[in-house]
């Protein structure tokens, strides 16, 4: 068994609006001098620390947790899972 840090990023699916990201872009960033930014998307990240036998097992375990416990609502959101060695 090894320890892994797993980052779970939850964000709205493509095509689903993200009013918070849009407001931060239009009313904060673009109003300053930073005109090269074209998109901001908000997301929520959960950082898990987990003991599993390998990276693959860690990933599938976390995916299962996310699905089973409705950590994200697949109606509107997607999750991206990144696994790192602790």
């Amino acid at each position: 068994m090894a320890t892994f840090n797993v980052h779970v990023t939850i964000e709205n699916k493509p095509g689903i609006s993200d009013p918070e990201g849009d407001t931060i872009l239009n009313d904060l960033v673009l109003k300053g001098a930073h005109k090269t930014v074209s998109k901001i998307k908000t997301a929520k990240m959960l950082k898990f620390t987990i003991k599993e036998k390998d990276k693959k097992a860690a990933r599938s375990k976390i995916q299962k947790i996310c699905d089973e416990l409705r950590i994200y609502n697949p109606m509107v959101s997607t999750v991206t899972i990144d696994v790192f060695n602790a």
Partner: protein
Amino acid sequence: MSLEPQELAELKLNIGRDPTSTELQIVAAEWSEHCSYKSSKKHLKMLPMKGPLVIHEKGYDSGVLDVGNGYVVTAHIESHNHPSAVEPYGGAATGVGGVIRDILSAGTRPIAILNGLRFGNIETDKHARWLFKNAVTGIADYGNCLGVPTIGGEVEFDDCYHNYALVDVAAVGFGKKKNLIKNHATNGDLVVLLGGSTGRDGMGGSQFASDSLESEDRSAVQIPDPFIEKLIIEAILEARKQKLINAMKDLGGGGLSCAVSEIANTLEVGIEMDVDMVHTRESNMHPDEIMISESQERMLIITSKTKLKELQKICKKFRISCSVIGHVKSDNQMHVKKGKKTFANLPTDVIVNATLLDLPSKKPVYLKTIEKEKKLRPIFDYSKIMMNFLAAPNIASKIWVYGQYDHEVGIRTVIKPGHDASVLRLDNGKFLSVKIDGNPKQCYINPREGAIGCFEEACRNVVCTGAKPIGMLDHLQFGNPKDPEIFWTFLESLKGLTDFANHFKIPCIGGKVSLYNETPAGPIKPTPLIGVLGLIDKKPLIPQRISDGDCLVIVGDTKDEMGGSEYFEYIHKFIGGKCPSVNFVESKKNMKVVLKVIQSQLLKSVHDCSKGGLAVAISELCMTNQIGCRILLENVPGEKLDVDRILFSESHSRYLLTLDKKNLKKLETMLKKSKVSFKLIGKFRGKKIQFTKGTKSIIDLRVDIAQKTWLNSLKDLVLHG
């Protein structure tokens, strides 16, 4: 989205050719149950809609009442059941948004939100808890951000909503009568789309709401943006002030398809529009998608060419997009183009007039035996039962819910949530009392009496604040209307509401029908929800603190009507028995005399007696005032009944009056004169809730312990399961 084969044939016959794909989408949206009311419309006409205070104008999505001194109140009710059942946060939030825009489209400022929430059994079902928690957060985040106070509502749990959610939202608006939008349009006027951008979200939502859940493809979810909605409210009210709006309509179910066709048809004009002019969120959207997208926070405005610049200036100030998407013509056609190419060109009356159905109905078989009571297990310890009862999700305090809603913003809220009805102060010195009530448990057992009961309960609640009911909103929620047994329950409820409205001369000022509310386990119980608005000319009865020695008088009889009661269903797990029924004559007499004694300022408070019966209503008085009581059950007026029936029967037309002892004589004289059934049943004192019958103690509870359970159990259940 699609039409039924015979509907397609009708459409072809009407226009004399095959419709284009865009035309099909437009017509399918407009002919959906959600937009056309095709199953219910024929029957809804029975409700009385007129009254001395009702103002009728062309094309309003909300009802309007004249409250005097040049002011009006607007009100509307809607639901967002299907979307909330799959994405409770967004579904509930956008439900608030939709009904707020209906208020706005009359040109009035929204001043209050109420909501009725229904879910499955949250004690046993984790998913129901998830739905409940997120729907509440959705409503809170949306309403709080808008700065429109959420002043009341109700929450109920029942197994029939397993894996489902009913989210009903009512909103109230206020404004000057002279500022009401008088919808009109003339040839050459511009059609402007204002607010959020159009995207692929919420595609086909109205169709979605007209199907049962198991068959939908679950794509019709909308993302709420309360910030844009708030800006729309301010921009529209500013534009109204500058008289820049000729006509206005909210984009709701069916998106542009319904808004454009309905406004054109109402105003008897044609509209030619170009989908390329619509501001979209995504590029490469097909015209069909643009026409039926139900993206939120959008308004359609018709303005004159000369006023456009000013309107654009206002939109710029409030940083919201506005696009001129078309213009008004005199040909009564809805003409949709993309650039030069025509995608749809239909007579508006064809689009908006779906063929109305006359569905068959048949009395449900289950009703034949439902009134028969089973033998109940005997209860030995009513104190213990009472403690369980106070913790029951349907009885427990809803403070966890309304504590998350800003109910003070707008500084109108005179009587705040947690009482019978909430009361708002109006600018003309009068007060508006509002309440919504539903009772699916009783409506299931007797759809007619149950619906009347909801209506009377809502009236009772506003009467408790000293208000006279002046208008009603109805929201009729049922299963699949094509099932004749379900349709029968719909008709029975409607007839009951109509009879009550006629007898009490309370006009129906608005309403909504939501059908196809089905879960995998079957249809929901009939769930009509009734909102009542009451007006107080002088002073509301703000509940005063009850103190030692104060008296408790009950008005109204307690009867053997246990069907659909919380006691039967929660304690005995029994669905059945005789449904409480309203005696119109008694009901009117009681209402009248309660209003009269409130006006004579003899009382400290009036509390309605409903869910959970007398035992719960009196305990609520004790717990909110942190004072004990001694109640003599043998004094409770009505038939001679067993103890459990006196305690827990949910008979209607009952009011609990609290008062200082010194006013008792005067009160009794007034009540005697009006020939209502009443009795002094107890006194407040000490720190214990005590019910006795003869020499026997029936319930004996410490107020502080009861209060703790009552206040915290819902929160504990939601947060810790």
